[in-house]
């Protein structure tokens, strides 16, 4: 979740377009290596910015391996643990999975791993659709400060941050350009 106060300043540019592209390509390679191929693989992007990143990873894998990888979208709004404290609530959008997840290796994809609560919600949502053989987590940026025992299997960029800082991920598909910024008050 990204909330920006107007007085936030750019502290550092973490990734530009070329470095982001390389990070995503490397993440795709790591996923295929860890899975020893593309058998049973399914990439699932967490709304909203996990979706374009997941799509790019799926495309990279397809180019590398010459086989399409099923890609799905998961909406975690209804599984959040902060529904009673956030406002206004995010609009609920459909979850779209291309095929049953039973016995698949599902790779959840998100932009930033922070407290781990989004991933917790995504796991709960995923389990309601079936019983995957395994679930992996791939994130573009791991910024630390976990509040739950969750870790990523594949990481684009690890960066230590202060709690006051905000990681802003911009993507061509949603923001018109590719870059990752560290913002601070």
């Amino acid at each position: 979740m990204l909330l920006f106060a107007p007085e936030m300043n750019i502290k550092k540019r973490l990734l530009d377009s070329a470095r982001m592209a390389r990070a995503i390509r490397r993440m795709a390679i790591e996923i295929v290596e860890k899975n020893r191929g593309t058998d049973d693989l399914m990439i699932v992007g967490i709304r909203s910015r996990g979706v374009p990143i997941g799509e790019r990873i799926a495309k990279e894998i397809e180019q590398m391996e010459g086989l399409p990888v099923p890609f799905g979208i998961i909406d975690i709004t209804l599984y959040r643990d902060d529904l009673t404290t956030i406002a206004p609530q995010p609009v609920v959008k459909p979850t779209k999975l291309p095929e049953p997840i039973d016995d698949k290796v599902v790779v959840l994809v998100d932009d930033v791993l922070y407290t781990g609560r989004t991933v917790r919600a995504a796991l709960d949502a995923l389990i309601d659709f079936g019983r995957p053989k395994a679930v992996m987590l791939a994130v573009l940026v791991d910024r630390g400060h976990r509040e739950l025992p969750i870790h990523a299997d594949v990481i684009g960029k690890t960066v230590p941050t202060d709690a006051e800082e905000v990681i802003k991920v911009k993507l061509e598909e949603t923001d018109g350009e590719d870059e990752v910024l560290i913002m601070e008050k």
Partner: protein
Amino acid sequence: MRTQTSALRSKDLLGIEPLSPEEITLILDTAEGFKEVSERPVKKVPALRGQLVINLFMEASTRTRVSFEIAEKRLSADTLSFSASGSAVEKGETLIDTAQNLMAMAPDMIVIRHKHPGAPKMLADRLPASIINAGDGAHEHPTQALLDAFTIREKLGRLQGVNVSIIGDISHSRVVRSNIHLLTKMKANVTLAGPPSLMPVQIERMGVRVVNSLNEAIEGADVIMMLRVQLERQGKLSFPSLREYYNTFGLTPERLRRAKEGVMVMHPGPMNRGVEIASDVADGPYSVILEQVTNGVAVRMAVLYLLGGAHMAE
């Protein structure tokens, strides 16, 4: 009492009349997300976990009550339903007393159907719970209008500029009142037809067109919405006979031939087959009557979620 901060301005859904076009669009957009939940292997999400919803049905209902109950269960709310018969209402308890006693059990939301217009508002003004109107007399039935709009938008992709003809017993219908409010707010074109004895005078003031015959209403319509002849609300018939009603305002396959290609035939149910609608039409290729029922669950989930799903603790 909690502070309401959802995107809907009111803590209650008492009717379509107080809603803005933006609020209507939000409910319909949210319902799209919820429709998918009903198609999952596990048809349940934890959004309203730990919340208590009381369904207070003081008037007969199957479809609406069942639809609300399913919607509540799919959102993981705790639910409790009761009707007038078999409750303390039969012993002479007033609505306010019933409600205050229920309130002492701390429900988060109350869904109410009542024969008297304004009964939901009376509760809304007195109780901190969110009140959802599931039909009050001939006043409003907001979730029905929302599910009708959802069904139209799903098929045609829009509401603006859509020609909707509503035919039948206009006077006694809360469905039509909610639909007129909703469709005119969303800039659809509404045409009404029905027996003059069941057509309120000056209804044109609500921004609708009134025509005299069924054929005029069918011509050019994208959507034909047939209303139930509400025998129980009339005391005595406002027209000579059911046979004559069918001959004048019943939707038959022959009459439907005058309609546009791909016209949608809707009915809020329960149908009187052979009175306002022929079986061949109700079960025919243009009928979306059962889709309306399916969509009703998604729309009610959206309303429950928007009113109860996200609010700040005090």
